[in-house]
């Protein structure tokens, strides 16, 4: 039996740069920036008062969510819209056995509002409401903020009976979700898979969690200059939100039905740094192995790579260590693909970061264009890397890579190439 191959046939995006795949991609290529004052709550006086929020979002009424709409939160509403765009783009639903189509997602925990928290912690009041007469009278709204709920909403909407999985490994979540989808199609478990991520930090508690550990940039007077991966003046990441959903499909199936193919996923690496919960090993261990495993599986030459979309969060440690890891994998072997991080424009989408960045890689393959590198004035510790240009450039080479690194030590690396 010849090895099964996996390609991308649909992409849907909701991002701080716009609603929709082409809107987001065009804004990215123009070098636009999604950062601005926090609108979701009153952030005056906060250590950080800006973020990359999705603007003017309204869930498309034609998405057939039915009664399951009540299970969505802000992040998964983005996700539903992105998924709808992806399946419309690929036209997969009328062309696949629903038992052979699965779902794998990386989803963040929903943003519990302080008012809600104040109610939920009042156990006396909750217990007093317990009554047998209420049995069956209320659906389980508890599901709304659970990461695992969104996959079921999608499966239910489109009657997809293949396996569904939700992964939560912080910022590596949706990179790993794409990796799982890739593996399941390769194994023959699935013909196609909806895969991606959704997340939002637009709530006081989630946003404050990152403020407290000092991970967010405090460049409050210059929000659009704040996310500056690999720059010496970086001081933290910019919180983002949004969703990206891709349709992954077995290549022959996609070809037979005449689907448009963005690119082929040819390698995946998944490792643990096993070091500290937030810090990375100084030698880049973990990220290096994820990249090397993905490249090895792809059977590509290093010289095939024209672009690496780095995790590049704009935090001091991540960028330094990732730059060193990229040097070990590429530069020290005499190869210099363009490396940048699109978080400079989108902010950090946390659980959805891997998926939106993989989408940008697929679009780069489609258009043979590399997005610009913005907010880079003085490269810090990465003189060995080719950090690209401040405007979009032509993709040289046939392969690209997308990296994700998560709190907790999980790393993922996806390799894609143009499809023959």
């Amino acid at each position, binding site marked *: 039996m010849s090895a099964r191959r996996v390609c991308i046939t649909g992409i849907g995006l909701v991002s701080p740069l716009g609603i929709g795949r082409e809107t987001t991609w065009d804004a990215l290529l123009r070098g636009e920036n999604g950062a601005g004052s926090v609108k979701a709550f*009153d952030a005056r*006086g*906060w250590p950080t008062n800006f973020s990359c929020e999705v603007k003017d979002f309204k869930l498309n009424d034609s998405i057939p969510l039915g009664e399951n709409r009540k299970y969505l939160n802000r992040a998964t509403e983005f996700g539903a819209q992105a998924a709808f765009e992806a399946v419309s783009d690929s036209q997969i639903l009328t062309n696949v056995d629903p*038992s052979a189509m699965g*779902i794998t997602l990386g989803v963040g*925990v929903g943003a*519990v509002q302080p*008012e809600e*928290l*104040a109610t*939920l912690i009042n156990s*006396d009041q*909750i*217990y*007093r409401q*317990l*009554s*047998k007469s*209420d*049995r069956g*009278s209320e659906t*389980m709204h*508890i*599901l709304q903020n*659970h990461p*695992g*709920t969104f*996959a*079921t909403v999608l*499966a239910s909407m489109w009657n*997809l*009976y*293949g*396996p*569904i999985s*939700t992964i939560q*490994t*912080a910022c590596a979540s949706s990179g*790993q979700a794409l990796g799982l989808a890739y593996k399941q199609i390769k*194994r023959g478990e699935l013909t196609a898979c909806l895969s991606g991520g959704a997340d939002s930090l637009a709530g*006081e*508690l989630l946003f*404050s*969690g990152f*403020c*407290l*550990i000092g991970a967010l940039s405090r460049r409050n007077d210059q929000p659009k200059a704040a996310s500056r991966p690999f720059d010496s003046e970086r001081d933290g990441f910019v919180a983002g939100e949004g969703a990206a959903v891709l349709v992954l499909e077995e290549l022959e199936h996609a070809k037979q039905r005449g689907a448009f193919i963005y690119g082929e996923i040819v390698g995946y690496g*998944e*490792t*643990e740094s*096993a*070091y500290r*919960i*937030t810090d990375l090993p100084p030698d880049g*261990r973990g990220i290096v*192995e994820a990249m090397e495993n993905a490249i090895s599986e792809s059977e590509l030459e290093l010289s095939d790579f024209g672009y690496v979309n780095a995790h590049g969060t704009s935090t001091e440690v991540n960028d330094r260590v990732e730059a060193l890891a990229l040097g070990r994998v590429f530069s020290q072997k005499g190869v210099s693909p363009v490396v940048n991080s699109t978080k400079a424009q989108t902010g950090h989408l946390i659980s959805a970061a891997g998926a939106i960045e993989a989408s940008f890689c697929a679009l780069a393959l489609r258009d043979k264009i590399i997005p610009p590198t913005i907010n880079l004035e003085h490269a810090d510790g990465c003189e060995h890397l080719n950090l690209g240009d401040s405007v979009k450039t032509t993709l040289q080479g046939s392969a690209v890579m997308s990296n994700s690194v*998560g709190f*907790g*030590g*999980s790393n993922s690396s996806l390799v894609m190439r143009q499809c023959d």
Partner: protein
Amino acid sequence: MKADRNVVITGRSVISPLGDDIAVALNACYEGRSSFEPLIDSTEVSNRVYTGRCGDLDQSVLPDKKVRKSIVRRDLIGLIGALKAAVEAKITKGSVDPDQFGIYVGSSSTQIQDLNPYYPLIERSFEGSSFNSELFGKELLGSVNPLVMLHTLMNNTLCYASIALDIRGVNGNFMDFQSAGSNAVIEGFHSIREGRAKVVLAGGVSGCPEPYQMKQGVDSGYLAFEGSEVSSDNIIRPYSSDRCGTILSEGSAFLVLEEEEHALSRGAKPIARLSAVGKGSDASFAFLNDNRSKGLVRCLQNLANNFKLDKAKLGLVFGHGNGSVHGDMVEYRAYQEIFEGWDDDVMLTSPKASLGEMGEASAVASLILASEVLNGADVIPIHNFMNDTKNNPMVNLARQNYKNDQILITSRGFSGLCCALMLERV
């Protein structure tokens, strides 16, 4: 890529309301004994809702006692469980090639109670019934433990177990409700079969249920809501016509999965072989309200696509059976459909009358008890069953010896994900 790698189990742990000794848990299951307790509260109605809580935890396996302050109770239960499984497998930090050592965990979600470092500031930030975000933000630094977000990460069991054992290979943290643990085992199984890892620590961990979860669980009809006249041992009635809901328990269950050749070469004793797996989806929150769900049937059919179901070998199913009104019925029908013509020959059991619904850890706990049965322990009888077994011929009501070579373990989650694991005698 070698396709014939066998996957064996070389280490196990279960931490449940019955303790952390597998033999003790098994005995409780034989006797129909539980340790469920009513919610402790001043109100009368709360005494009708039960929960299963693990007692004091044996923390001797922790490499660094400071870790207790860095993680919430759920992950302490998970971490101890993961490390105990490694102890049984005789695996220590550095004894396995780190790059060939993987970890997959099924974890429950962030709990409201773990956000308690925020409570005082939230309280101060209310002006009447409205929340003052500006005030909250101004006082944030210095008022709240800065590490609260890190303490409550949903992948903390994975992270801390990886650090403790130097696990640097494949990994993932699944959030698929009651099927999360079995999904983790399935991905570990594939990783070894595909040559991505030699050893994988896989399992699930479930946090202690919270008041608001209990309230919504009762309202939905999922949780039992019984009067004090019923003994806590008799509340969960798997597959019984008078079943009235389940009881949530905290706990963890972990396995060390290992390529058989690797296990033998280092002198480890295979406890059982994991031979086949399957997954399928209901495509709905079927557990709650849809009696027509087919996810488990699809899941078992997927397993059977790669593994011949043989009535000479398979004589026992450790079902999901947790006493829930809709779930147990759907599940039983799936077995009738899959085993049509030989359902008289396959016994069905469930340990949940004693363990409770351990959520993300439940199927892995069942698998571990099943591994004991394959190694000579008796089959667990189903307790609190009221039906006529003529209509439910699979339901096993007797403690008895098991001579067949295979046991099937199933799980069904809120998300509609159903998983099946086929365990074989080594």
